[in-house]
């Protein structure tokens, strides 16, 4: 579909030629959707700190939610296609991509992989259609990079479990119909529990005053003697590796998404530099500016290739978590560097909402922190390289 904005994705090595025809159709359709449905209103949402809720059923209609899963109303596409979706969504805004990441990778994926048949039938088709929204409660106020230390508990009682604790930095928690809460069961292993909206003792609390991801809901969840029935537990997910596998899938999407944010900034800054006249010449004609573009072109191309290759590893099923860590870590840092450089090229205009670069930069400050911080991914790679874990006692 011809798209409405003048956006041109920088693809210097024609990396998209490595995509299948199907994946390129996915790219075109999501790109047009972002142009027509997300970008026209994103500044207002970012300013007001609201998520474009009306778009959620549209995401569902398009098949963007849980696209990488088979059956239960999901599109059953490749991981590469899922990556392309994330890239194009984040070209619009990291908040929109975050929504899809959480719904697809952090809630639908674990239900699909670790849930009972009843749980899958109940939740997946509704979530794929965008009629139900999910959130993922792992992080706590005192346990971020170290989720295994979590203080939230689940206690077996007659007919179910009682949950107690606090979750924090939870995307979508205030708008969610279903919270997947991870808690330590009876002092033993970590397990996942499906807590429906309105369950007594489960209260979301929106985190206000964010400079980042403003067009996205970020909340805490307070669990106070919250009773859930025995069929609320995810039967197949046992131990910390279950939530970590979800994060792996979400990080994969981020590695692609960051490329979209960088491409958006690059395109905007290039357009600006060619038309902004200083000293009687477009600033694009100055060597210092050209060098900035040369650097950014190199960074983006490198990140594109990492995302594409990682996609192949996922589709072949030969990936390991450290592969995803490398691309998530590299590509988000790359996008931040590109965003800041573009903001600089935009001069004073770059600090206004007229331009997208600073919005992307502010968003990426979250993206470089969540789903494993930049440093934690460095340590995952360090352990993979040396065989010595640096972050365990």
């Amino acid at each position, binding site marked *: *579909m*011809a*798209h409405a*904005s*003048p*956006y*041109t994705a920088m693809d210097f090595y*024609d990396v998209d030629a490595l995509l299948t*025809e*199907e994946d*390129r*159709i*996915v790219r*075109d*359709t999501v790109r*047009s*959707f972002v142009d027509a449905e997300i970008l026209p209103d994103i500044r207002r949402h970012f300013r007001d700190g609201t998520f474009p809720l009306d778009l959620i059923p549209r995401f569902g*209609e*398009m*098949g*963007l939610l849980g*696209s990488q899963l088979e059956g239960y109303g999901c*599109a*059953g*596409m490749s991981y590469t*296609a899922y990556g392309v979706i994330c890239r194009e969504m984040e070209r619009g805004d990291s908040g929109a991509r975050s929504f899809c990441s959480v719904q697809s990778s952090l809630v639908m994926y674990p239900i699909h992989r670790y849930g009972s048949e009843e749980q899958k039938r109940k939740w997946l088709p509704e979530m794929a259609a965008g009629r139900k929204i999910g959130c993922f409660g792992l992080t706590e106020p005192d346990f971020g990079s170290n989720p295994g230390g979590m203080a939230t508990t689940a206690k077996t009682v007659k007919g179910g479990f009682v949950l107690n604790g606090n979750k924090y930095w939870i995307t979508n928690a205030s708008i969610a119909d279903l919270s997947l809460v991870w808690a330590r069961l009876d002092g033993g292993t970590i397990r996942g529990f499906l807590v429906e909206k309105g369950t007594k003792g489960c209260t979301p609390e929106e985190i206000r005053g964010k400079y980042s991801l403003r067009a996205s809901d970020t909340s805490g969840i307070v669990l106070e003697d919250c009773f859930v029935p025995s069929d609320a537990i995810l039967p197949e997910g046992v131990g910390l590796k279950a939530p970590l596998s979800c994060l792996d899938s979400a990080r994969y999407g981020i590695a692609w998404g960051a490329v979209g944010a960088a491409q958006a900034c690059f395109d905007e800054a290039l357009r600006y530099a060619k038309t902004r006249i200083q000293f009687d010449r477009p600033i694009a004609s100055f060597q210092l500016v050209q060098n900035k573009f040369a650097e950014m072109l190199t960074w983006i191309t490198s990140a594109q290739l990492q995302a594409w290759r990682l996609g192949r590893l996922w589709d072949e099923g030969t990936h390991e978590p450290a592969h995803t860590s490398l691309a998530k870590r590299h590509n988000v840092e790359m996008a931040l560097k590109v965003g800041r450089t573009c903001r600089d090229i935009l001069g004073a205009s770059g600090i206004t909402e007229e331009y997208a670069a600073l919005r992307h930069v502010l968003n990426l400050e979250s993206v470089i922190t969540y789903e494993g911080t930049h440093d934690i991914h460095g340590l995952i790679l360090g352990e993979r390289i040396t065989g010595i874990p640096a972050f365990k006692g």
Partner: protein
Amino acid sequence: MKIAVCIKRVPDTTAKVRIAADGKTVDPAGVEWVIGPYEEIALEAALKLKEAGKAEKVTVLCLGPKEATKELRTALAMGADDAVLLVDGGGERDAAAVAGALAAEAKGLGADLLLFGWKAIDTDQASVPHLAAAILERPCVSFVTKLEAGDGRLLCHREVEGGTEALEVPLPCVLTAQKGLAEPRYASLKGIMAAKKKPLVEKPAPAAAAAVRTERLSLPPERPPGRILGQGVDAVPELVRLLRDEAKLL
């Protein structure tokens, strides 16, 4: 009713077009290709007729390079039932030759309604649909902005200066779509998956022929730089004069 929608693969509306070394064609390097926006509207109108139970089948038809399978798959993903690609073997082909190839194929498909976009946005010729109608000896309505299907007939609206014209046309016929006829849908991911299983036939297009030949393509002249007429109120009379006499805006 069987519908055939003819689509053209055109450079994306935002593509920066360069002229190839031969001076007569568009350099394909770095160009993203899409279904022409008016053809997309025509396709949407056809899909709406099918969804309303007024048509049993929608076939998309394209004369283009082998790579145009992407645009046909996109049309299948949007909801068309099957697709035919007449693979262009190269050589210059004028509008009459394109119309001849498409008309013959549409006739072979048994299409009652042949839908086009009113013009292809790359060449801007807007002549293929009318030539096809003449070849098929079928009535033709162009710039359709509203379409209703009756019994063996179609009611078409078209915009005319200051109003709307309502026309009735019997089937089989040829229509061209104008903006406003329909709002093209997005290809959903499920549609994209389903499209993989839908029939897409590729066959060689008839040999190219051209009575009308392209002499050369040239880009529009560069815009002259802006002029500074002066500053403050002193510059206003000259500005007004230029807006009136030169730009003819006043």
